[in-house]
């Protein structure tokens, strides 16, 4: 090879050195083999030597191929990977910049539509946060609109309480979100709450990563949705927590108004719904009951 390509003779000599250096290593192991034979039995050692010889043979077979291929300088590899990473970063950043406002706006609209849908008689809504004293405090609608994306994120963390009003400005009900961990991740649900009867009257799943075709049932299964038409969320005597925590029970064993009958085949998702309802009601119901006077004031 060095005769036919004299230019490469300089490069092939250092290439030959690393090619030589591995050969002592298998040799060492080869010498160890008899010791191991004494320890572990002749069969194993025979296997080992056989694999070693094949390894040496294949190493010899690949040697010419390695020498033949022009060595790619590391710099070229680094440059290529760097360039590809840069293109990739640019594409992802562009896509994110372009879609982020659309996604935020869609999620805000979806939340608003969900609130108005879950409170059927409502035509307008006001947003409230639960303050440190455990009472509702109105959110400035301008600021709320300005931080649409942030508001959505806050709702995910369980912040906002939405109050729906009809055309005459009468309170039609309240909506709040709750999160429960399900089969594949957190399930975020919006609940409608009737402050007079102290019951959860409707539900709508906002976000879930449950198995497609199963998690959907939390929103579509008519028998399951019946559970959430009058789900008891009464406060106990102190007004700090629910009198009876909301729980999900095995399918067909619901006996109390604060229990949820699980869907067969989607028990974990049903439990997530129960956890979400309990979490949401424990958080929001006491604050709502304390702030009924504020809520009763017509909007505007």
């Amino acid at each position: 090879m060095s005769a036919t390509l004299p230019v490469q003779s300089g490069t092939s000599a250092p290439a030959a050195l690393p090619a030589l250096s591995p050969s002592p290593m298998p040799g060492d192991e080869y010498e160890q083999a008899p010791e191991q034979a004494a320890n572990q039995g002749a069969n194993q050692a025979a296997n080992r030597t056989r694999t070693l010889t094949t390894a040496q043979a294949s190493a010899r077979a690949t040697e010419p191929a390695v020498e033949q291929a022009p060595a790619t300088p590391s710099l070229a590899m680094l440059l290529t990977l760097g360039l590809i990473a840069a293109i990739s970063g640019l594409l992802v950043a562009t896509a994110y910049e372009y879609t982020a406002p659309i996604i935020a706006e869609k999620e805000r609209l979806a939340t608003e539509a969900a609130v108005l849908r879950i409170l059927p008689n409502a035509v307008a809504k006001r947003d409230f946060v639960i303050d440190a004293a455990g009472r509702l405090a109105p959110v400035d609608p301008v600021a709320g609109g300005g931080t649409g994306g942030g508001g959505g994120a806050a709702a995910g963390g369980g912040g906002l309480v939405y109050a729906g009003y009809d055309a005459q400005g009468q309170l039609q009900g309240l909506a709040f979100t709750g999160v429960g961990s399900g089969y594949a991740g957190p399930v975020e649900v919006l609940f409608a709450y009737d402050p007079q009867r102290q019951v959860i009257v409707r539900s709508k799943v906002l976000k879930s990563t449950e198995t497609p075709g199963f998690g959907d049932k939390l929103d579509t299964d008519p028998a399951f949705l019946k559970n959430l038409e009058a789900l008891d969320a009464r406060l106990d005597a102190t007004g700090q927590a629910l009198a009876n925590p909301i729980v999900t029970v095995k399918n067909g064993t619901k006996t109390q108004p604060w229990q949820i009958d699980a869907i067969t085949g989607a028990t974990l998702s049903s439990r997530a719904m129960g956890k979400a309802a309990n979490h949401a009601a424990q958080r929001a119901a006491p604050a709502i009951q304390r702030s009924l006077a504020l809520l009763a004031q017509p909007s505007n």
Partner: protein
Amino acid sequence: MAEASQPAAVAKAAADPFNREENLTADTFLRGLWQENPVFVMLLGMCPVLAVTNSAINALGMGLATTFVLLGSGALVSLLRRWIPKQVRIASYIVIIATFVTVVDYAIHAISLELYASLGAFIQLIVVNCIILGRAEAYASKQRLLPTLVNGLGMGLGFTLALFSLGSVREILGNGTLFGVALFGDSFQPWLVMILPPGGFFVLGTWLLLFAWLKQRRERRVLASAGAAAHG
């Protein structure tokens, strides 16, 4: 080494990677749809095939997202094929594929929150779909841009078609609906197992049976006609 020292062999070996460029024919496109259908013939990408085909719309969304990733990554791999060193090609392909998966993830999120919610994590998992890496390694890295795009489109649509064949059957049997529209009266008792994971295996198995039977029948006919020609 002896062969390599002959100049002709060296030239041939050097030209080899670009020697296999194929011309653009109808077959470039149709292969992915039928002959080399990624699901029914090559049995690749079984994870999304079984996981998200419980409704027709999920199957269609997944198929089209995969097609987009196939096209985007194929185009970039094909354009960069002369610059990507052999040693780092897989890393490069993975980064390129992951890029397009992220883009399609954002796009689906912006287009439809419902679809995004129901496809869940399976959009991100397109990264590890072996059809895409397989196409990048076996086709895009050796071919010019146009055949790559056409072949990628064929493969993507073949994948979409296969997902849809599974998704529509499973939705009809398991839920009594197609694209969410109820097909039967209230008396229809959904065959629930069909939208559960086992249903994916049942329906896939049935489709594979059908394809194997068609292939066998064609081979038998060819044999019969050859035999008839020999005797006649």
